[in-house]
């Protein structure tokens, strides 16, 4: 195990967790959605790093494509309605 790889791992995990936190703690919905899409991107790198190319392919295909589009559309609708959606279930 090369130290570079460990460094890479640490950096990757750090970025991943930081991003997840930023996304989950984000006050603004649309920002959370964009960050979630970026989170998917980083996750793809994780799958690649862990030698799971099948999973990486799936994550890339679904996260950037369908899932992202769906969430963006939902966030846009909420933003358009304007009201703070805190009263939602």
């Amino acid at each position, binding site marked *: 195990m090369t130290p570079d790889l460990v460094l890479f*791992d640490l950096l990757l*995990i750090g970025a991943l967790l930081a991003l997840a936190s930023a996304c989950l703690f984000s006050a603004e919905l649309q920002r959370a959605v964009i960050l979630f899409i970026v989170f998917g991107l980083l996750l793809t790198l*994780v*799958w690649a790093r862990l*030698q799971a190319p*099948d999973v990486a392919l799936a994550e890339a295909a679904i996260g950037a494509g369908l899932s992202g589009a769906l969430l963006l559309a*939902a966030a846009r609708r909420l933003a358009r309605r304007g009201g703070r959606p805190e009263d939602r279930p």
Partner: protein
Amino acid sequence: MITALLYTAAGLLLFCLGLWSFLMHRPLLRKLIALNVMGSGVFLVFVALAYRGPEGAPDPVPHALVLTGIVVAVSATALALALGRRLEEAERD
């Protein structure tokens, strides 16, 4: 093994972060994102325990399970968003 432990820890942290966010936020979209993060955490645990060093071929079974899990998660998210949209319409009327 260190790699697996490291990524397992990351997966568990994602799970717990997601759980926290799920419990603390009320908007549907936030809960969905939280659930997806939680799911990703679990998937990460699976993939981490499939990893067997840079040389060894990884265990394909957890990879397959995670693929299935991803499809399920996407399905659920899509359904939830559709219901949410319908609810908005119902509330607007």
